Structures are given as structure tokens and as C-alpha cells.
């Protein structure tokens, strides 16, 4: 494995791939900040910079290394050099893992350079943990709703006769987007994980309120969470970040009790929100540098997966076809979650659209290793990339998936005739 790693590393180094990527990274940091525009605020400037500069470097790195991976084995096979390696007493797996490590090493160097340049810019703010309310899984809620619907004698016949899995799928979608109303003078509370309240200070509630008819209704209310509280007064339809301060008269929560975020509507309009999407508690995490380190780790894991996929394709296909297939994979990876987000399933959906949704679901599931981690988005919004998320990405994207893909690739290398007729 060391030899095939060194071989691929030298190919990438002496083929000027690493140099070109480093030069592109430096250029992106030099030129892009002058081209992209933010909303004028410091936060907006930081977000736009992170999405435009490290985001572009990450995208270019993904595409470039995927293309390189697609070429590595295919070119070795087409130039007959693979035959010279496979006649040696070395396993095909070792021949596959070496190039993967080399590609990941190149990615690590470029990402480290990118992170260094980003950090050197300065003026960054610390990241924050983001907690969602502890709610029952949407599937459980959907099961309950379905039971109620089927028990109701007024339920239309076409609903009763629809396949159960379709009904459940529709209800899960509805449950995720379900609105709860808070009438004037009333309050609503959501439980949060205990860790969300285990900080001395700096807790922020992030809530997006809506109203049913008036898009810009004024809103006023009181938010309380553990020993902290704050008053809120604003228009609806925008995401509000409400800093919570220690409130007089509020007692500390007993250790056994889960902390609750409580909102009391003191205005005159009924406000609405989706608990699964619109309510979050933010608490201070650690420095931007540490978050960048974890985000870089996540990027590296995704690139490891992409490179393994490219190597797998290059054992089975010719170079141009492998590169085309890989790029199609990248495009559908980006498209499938957007389709699912925009077009929820309904009972009256025509067959073709239903097939499209099923296809999108399949693609989204198959490509979740790539589309799941959102390191750039998390960095830009100041969300802490959790160690657990990094661990999951490392396990799935950098270990399990590459092992499976490269084992298949090794099998193909062994099975395929490694020489042409002659």
C-alpha cells in the first residue's frame, strides 16, 4: 500500500495537481473577496466570505479530485501499467487504497492551506451549539395520525384505499411542516436536551414566527428558558435571534427536569410556528478556529468518499465515461434533496411525478454520505460542527463507504482481464 500511495502521490505532485490547487486556493482568497458582495453587516460579510471563498475551494477540490480519482486506475489500465503491478505479489486492495490515501493527502494539504488563510483573515466570532426541541420522531406521530384518520368514519374512500406506506410518507412530510398556533395571552413550551441549559451564560433562542394571513404582523411576547428570559417584539416571517438574560425571580431548574423553552404571546395576533423547523436554542461552543478544524475534517471525509467512488468508477469504466458518471453523481447529489424539499408527496400526484419523487428519495438516500454533512453552511452560520457529526462522517464517509467501494473495485481489478489481446 505504501508503494501505491507513493506512486499516486508523486503523480499528483509531479503532474502539478497539488500546485494548481494550492495556487487556485490562494487566488480565491485574493480575488473572490473583492468580487462578492455582502449585505454590509459584519455577520453578513463573514457569512458571504465563508460561503464564497472556502466554499468555492471546497467545491473545486471535490470536482478536481473526483476527476483525478476517475483517471488514476483507468489511465493505468489503458497504458498497461496496471498489468505490471497486478503480476506482483500484492493484493488488488492495496493497489486501490494507496491512491485513495494520496488523494486524501492532497486534499488535506489544500484544505489546511485554505483553513490557514481563512483563519489569518481574523475577525471571526465563536461558534454556537444548536439544539432542536426534543420531540417524538415524525414517523411515530404519523402512525398515530394515520390511526386517527382511518378510525374516522368521514375519511374519504380514496384515502382509505391508498397504500399505507404512501399515506405514512405524506403524513411524515406534514408532521415535519406542522404549524402550532399560539393564541394571544397563551403560551407554548418545548422541551430541550439538558445540555442546552448547562451553560452559565450566552444562551440565545432562535425562532421564526409566522401568522396565518398577515405577512408582516407585529409580534410581542416573552421567551423563557431555564433561569433566563427575554422580551421579544418584532415583525413576523423573519428569523429572530433572542439573547436570553438571567431573569429575576426565576428559579434554577431541578437537575432531573428537562429544560423547557417557553413562549408567551403577549401581542394581539395569533402567531404560528413549526416546532421541528422554527425553534432552536443556541449556546456558546468554542472558537472559530476549532470549528474550522472540525469542518475541515468533515470536508476531508466527504472528499475521501468521493475519491473512493471515483476510483471505483475508474476500475469499471474508461476515463471520460468515469468522469462523466462522477459529475452526474455530483449533480444528482445536489438536486435530489432540493426536489424532496420543494415537492412534498400528495395523494393526487400523477404517476410520473410520484416516480420522480421515489427516484429522488432513492438518490437522496444513496448520496446522503455526500449531501449529509454541510461543513461550509455550518461554518457560515456560526453553527458548531459537533464532534459526534465529525465522528459519524469519519466512520461512514472515510472508513466504511470507501472500504466497501474499494473492495468492489479490487474485485473488479482482479476479475477484469488486465491485458489486451496481443
Amino acid at each position: 500500500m505504501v508503494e501505491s500511495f507513493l506512486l499516486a502521490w508523486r503523480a499528483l505532485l509531479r503532474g502539478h495537481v497539488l500546485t494548481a490547487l494550492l495556487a487556485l486556493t490562494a487566488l480565491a482568497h485574493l480575488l473572490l473577496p473583492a468580487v462578492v458582495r455582502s449585505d454590509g453587516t459584519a455577520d453578513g460579510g463573514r457569512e458571504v466570505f465563508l460561503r464564497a471563498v472556502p466554499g468555492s475551494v471546497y467545491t473545486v477540490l471535490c470536482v478536481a479530485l473526483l476527476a483525478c480519482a476517475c483517471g488514476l486506475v483507468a489511465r493505468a489500465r489503458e497504458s498497461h501499467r496496471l498489468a505490471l503491478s497486478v503480476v506482483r505479489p500484492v493484493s488488488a486492495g492495496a493497489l486501490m487504497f494507496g491512491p485513495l490515501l494520496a488523494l486524501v493527502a492532497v486534499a488535506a494539504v489544500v484544505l489546511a492551506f485554505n483553513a490557514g488563510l481563512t483563519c489569518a483573515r481574523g475577525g471571526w466570532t465563536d461558534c454556537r451549539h444548536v439544539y432542536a426541541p426534543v420531540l417524538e420522531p415524525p414517523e411515530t406521530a404519523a402512525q398515530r395520525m394515520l390511526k386517527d384518520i382511518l378510525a374516522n368514519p368521514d375519511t374519504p374512500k380514496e384515502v382509505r384505499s391508498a397504500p399505507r406506506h404512501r399515506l405514512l410518507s405524506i403524513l411524515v412530510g406534514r408532521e415535519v411542516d406542522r404549524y402550532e398556533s399560539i393564541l394571544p395571552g397563551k403560551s407554548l413550551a418545548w422541551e430541550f436536551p439538558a445540555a442546552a441549559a448547562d451553560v452559565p451564560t450566552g444562551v440565545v433562542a432562535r425562532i421564526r414566527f409566522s401568522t396565518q394571513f398577515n405577512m408582516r404582523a407585529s409580534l410581542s411576547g416573552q421567551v423563557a428558558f431555564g433561569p433566563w428570559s427575554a422580551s421579544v417584539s418584532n415583525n413576523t416571517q423573519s428569523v429572530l435571534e433572542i439573547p436570553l438574560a438571567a431573569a429575576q425571580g426565576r428559579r434554577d431548574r431541578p437537575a432531573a427536569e428537562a429544560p423547557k423553552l417557553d413562549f408567551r404571546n403577549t401581542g394581539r395576533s395569533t402567531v404560528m410556528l413549526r416546532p421541528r423547523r422554527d425553534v432552536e436554542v443556541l449556546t456558546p461552543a468554542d472558537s472559530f478556529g476549532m470549528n474550522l478544524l472540525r469542518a475541515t475534517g468533515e470536508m476531508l471525509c466527504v472528499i475521501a468518499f468521493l475519491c473512493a467512488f471515483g476510483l471505483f468508477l475508474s476500475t469499471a469504466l474508461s476515463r471520460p465515461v468515469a468522469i462523466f458518471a462522477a459529475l452526474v453523481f455530483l449533480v444528482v447529489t445536489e438536486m435530489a434533496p432540493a426536489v424532496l424539499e420543494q415537492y412534498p408527496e400528495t395523494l393526487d400526484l400523477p404517476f410520473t411525478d410520484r416516480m420522480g419523487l421515489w427516484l429522488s428519495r432513492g438518490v437522496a438516500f444513496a448520496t446522503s454520505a455526500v449531501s449529509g454533512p454541510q461543513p461550509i453552511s455550518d461554518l457560515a452560520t456560526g453553527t458548531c460542527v459537533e464532534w459526534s457529526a465529525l465522528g459519524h462522517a469519519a466512520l461512514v464517509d472515510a472508513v466504511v463507504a470507501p472500504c466497501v467501494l474499494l473492495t468492489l473495485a479490487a474485485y473488479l481489478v482482479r476479475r477484469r482481464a488486465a491485458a489486451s489481446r496481443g
Partner: protein
Amino acid sequence: MRRFWALARSAALEALAEPLSAILFLVALLAVHLLPAFHLHQFGEPGRLSRECGFSALLVFGLVFATSAAVHSVGRELESGTAATALARPVPRSLFFCAKVAGVLAAFALFLFAVAGATLLSIVTSEMGRIVTQGDVVAWGPGIAAGAGGTLAAFALAALGNAFLRTRFCVGACLLTALAQPVALAGVLFLSHSPVPWNLLPALAVLALGCAAFVAMAGAFAVCLKPAAVSAVLTVAVLLAFISPLRAVMPDINRFWLVDAFAGGGAPAPADLCAAAGAGALLVAFWLAAGSFLLARREIP
């Protein structure tokens, strides 16, 4: 002239013989044909999605097809030494370069022909859907069956040709799928008598001219750079083309992208079409001259 045709013909056949070409033909045409089925995305006009997808297919898949073919035809031949064999004969280098690019452009013209046919058929199919839609009953079936079915049948026919007549599968598939499009369109028109937006064709041709400028550029770069480097340079060039800081030599995609003028039953002004076509032709000529110049100065080991 005979040498020019011989070189151009071999370049065109080589471009079509690549497996990637057949895949690009198939993916682009199926994408255009299947679109009318997705009635959720009509953007207020039944044919709009089909129209825009047709133009996008020409731009995206066409660019990938033609530029990779140009890089292969010029760059790889220089690398592998086959160009040296040809240039050892009394063939001027400028003729060699122009013939190679012309051959690739001929293959690209076939792609344009196929995509144009598919786009017209897809728009007609969408219009048929609007006319006949009653409740959930839609009339896209015949159009989609003719378009997608015709494309797949062309591939099957190419496979049969390969099996029994030993013809080259990829070349046969590309040629037959291109031929299948007007045949399918004629069949659908025979059934429905829907109006065909023929005025789309000049706009498609203008976009193809913009792409042709990139093809000539790819060929010119392939003379002096390695294929991987040409791909990187071209990617940057295409990105720059959308923001067009170098309008004189870089094809400005926005200038050739006239599809927006068709929104709401409109059409691009003839003056715009002529100006864009002229700009495209000039850019192609510029890059052909640049490529010939570079090849004349290049040492061929």
C-alpha cells in the same frame, strides 16, 4: 481540399466513435424528451421547460461532447505521435488544425441537429398536453413514446447493426438517434397537427456557434497544453464566459443565449440573431487562426 475532407472526416468519425459521445447523445435527448411528463414545472407556459431544457442540453452536453472531442482529436494525436505521421506528408499545419476542428464541429452539428429535433418534439408534446389535458388525463403519451422510444430504438438498431453487420456501435447510435428525431417529430405532427416553433432553430444555431467558439478554443489550447490542463483552462473559460470580462476573445454566453426572448410567445430580434451569429463566427475564426499559429510554432517530437 481532398486532404482537408479526409482529415475532417476521420476527426468527425473519431469524435462519434467515443463511448462518451453515445452516452451524451442518449442522456441529452432523453432529458429533453421526458420533460413534458413533469407537469409540475410549467413556469406558466407548457413548452417553456422543454424549450429551455433543449437549449441547456445543447450548451452543457454539447460543450462537454465537442470540447472533449476537440482535445482528443488535436491534443492526443499530437501526444501519441499520429499527428507526426500525418504532418510528415505534404499537409500544411494550418490545414491539419482547421480540418481537425472542422471534423469535430461536424460531429457537433449532428448533436445540434438531434437536440433541435428533440426540442421541437418536446415542445409539441407539451402543447399537446395542454390542449388535451382533461382532469388527470394527459396526452403526453404519444410524444414521449415517439421521442424517447425513437431514441432508444435508434440505440437498439445500432446494437443490431453492430451484432449483424459489424458496424461501429457508437457511431451508429449517434447517427441513428439524430435521424430518429425528425422522424419522430414527423410522426407526432401527423397525429396532432400542433404548431411547430420553427423560429427556435436560428436561436439554437446561434447558441451552437457560441459553443463552436469554445470548441475551436479547446483545439487551440490542446496544441500547447496537456489534455488535463486544457480541461482546467476550459472550465475557467466557461465560468468567465458567464461574467464576460474578456468579450473580445472569450465567447460571452449571455450574448448567444437567446432563449429568454421566446418567453410569452416572443422571439429574438433578427438584428440580435445576426449580431450574435457574426460574433460567433468571428470568434471561431479567431481561435482557428490562433490554433493554426500555435501549431505552426510547436515542435512535434
